[in-house]
């Protein structure tokens, strides 16, 4: 299957068999096709149930294999200091390639690095976003933020890219200022000022 089965069931990879079973039963209750009346919803529910069943079976059989190339690869850590410093040097090169917009070269180098640090996830996310693969990019940058929550650059990138504001409601730059409405507002303001505060410069409207 192409997705992480634990993610499909909404549980942690360290979850106990009881927790997994409970998550599975909850999912079955929530998405069972019999709950839906319309044919199209039934079809969607059937598809979802298929995913849930496959995920549960994969975990039960203990072969929770999924296509890691897609997006769900768990982070790998290394305690080898020399590998880590070598990786830092290469990642600096990757930053340079990204800066020069050589995204294919940057991706190629990143794919050859086995040590996946927060920086690796961040740079891979930037590369994927530049390729237009936003879902992948979001996953990678989120992973970088999770691994290194104190890093302001990762957090800001995530905020700016994926949690940014949506377009404004009235995004028409040619929205006209209505002169009639403006005139009414000016008259109303003048009348209020005149009525409430006669000392505000004299009684302009003598009848009130």
């Amino acid at each position, binding site marked *: 299957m192409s997705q992480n089965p634990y993610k499909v069931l909404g549980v942690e990879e360290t979850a106990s068999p009881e927790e997994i079973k409970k998550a599975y039963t909850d999912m079955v209750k929530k998405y069972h096709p019999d709950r839906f009346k319309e044919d199209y919803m039934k079809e969607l529910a059937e*598809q979802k149930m298929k995913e849930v069943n496959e995920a549960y079976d994969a975990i039960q059989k203990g072969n929770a294999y999924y296509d890691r190339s897609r997006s769900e690869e768990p982070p790998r850590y290394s305690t080898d200091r020399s590998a880590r410093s070598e990786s830092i040097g290469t990642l600096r090169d990757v930053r340079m390639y990204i800066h020069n917009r050589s995204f294919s070269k940057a991706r190629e180098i990143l794919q050859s690095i086995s040590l996946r640090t927060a920086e690796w996830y961040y740079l891979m996310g930037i590369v994927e976003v530049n390729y237009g693969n936003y879902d992948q990019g979001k996953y990678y940058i989120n992973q970088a933020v999770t691994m290194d929550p104190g890093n302001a650059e990762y957090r800001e990138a995530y905020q700016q890219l994926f949690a940014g504001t*949506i377009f404004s409601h009235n995004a028409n730059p040619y929205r006209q200022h209505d002169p009639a409405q403006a005139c009414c507002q000016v008259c109303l303001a003048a009348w209020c000022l005149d009525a409430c505060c006669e000392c505000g410069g004299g009684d302009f409207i003598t009848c009130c």
Partner: protein
Amino acid sequence: MYGYLRPLKSPHHDYTLFRAHYCCLCKTIQSEYGLPFRAGLSYEMAFFALLLNALQGADVSIRRETCLIHPFRKQAVFKSSPTMSLCAHLNMALLAGKLSDDIADEERFRPVRRIGLRYLESRAGNVFKGYSRLVSDAYESIRLLEGGKVDDVDAISALFGELLAALFLEVSAGSGLEPPEPMIHFSRVLGRWVYCIDALDDLQNDFRAKRYNPLIYRYKETLLSSDSLEKAYESIGSQEAVRLRLLSEHIMSEYRLFRMRLGLYSVEIDDIIFRTIPCACARIAKKNVVKEKK
């Protein structure tokens, strides 16, 4: 076909260049393919022609003519050129691709669409056939993904982006132009954007008509678990707005890299890139919310 890439109505501009390109393409289509096919002209193609002429540095030569739709008031028409003719053929090749896709997908108007497609192919020349091959190959790949009920919006929109980039390269080569690298990438991202915004625009209709739309499968949990369909549409709209925003920012940044080459034409193209695109995103993303409030 889509109609997202056109200038906004403005009291300050009349967009003569854009309108002149549209009218020129319309007249070229009439002379090459016949009167009814004028209805198949898209705003996107007028934008495409404008961009190509800008890159070529074509002289701005406009004449005023009447036509069937404007019999009394003369309209601005750009001068005919080989580039405009190539764009007209390309528009028809895309229309043929859309017609055959609709024939495969929908029962409605199938005989009419078949007649239209057959007539179009009977009048086709070598240029049309070359473009048509590219278009039908891309539609075939898209149909394969659609058949597999793929939920990866990025993957499926990438196919459309690649199609647009390939067509752009083909037309550029035909008119003896070597496009700058950012321009190719720009057309790729623009293709993605058109696919994504169209998918979001059609979401409700596709769901009702039980047609394939990648967003239905991408957000099946939202559709199944929301209290009402309106709430689900609203949630999908706000999530997809992020993708649309990223795509439009991407389009703008690529555009800035070759904008200086566009000369006089850049005034109207700027308007489409920096105003029309964000406004279209806002309109489509908020479509569901506005409807609910009404």
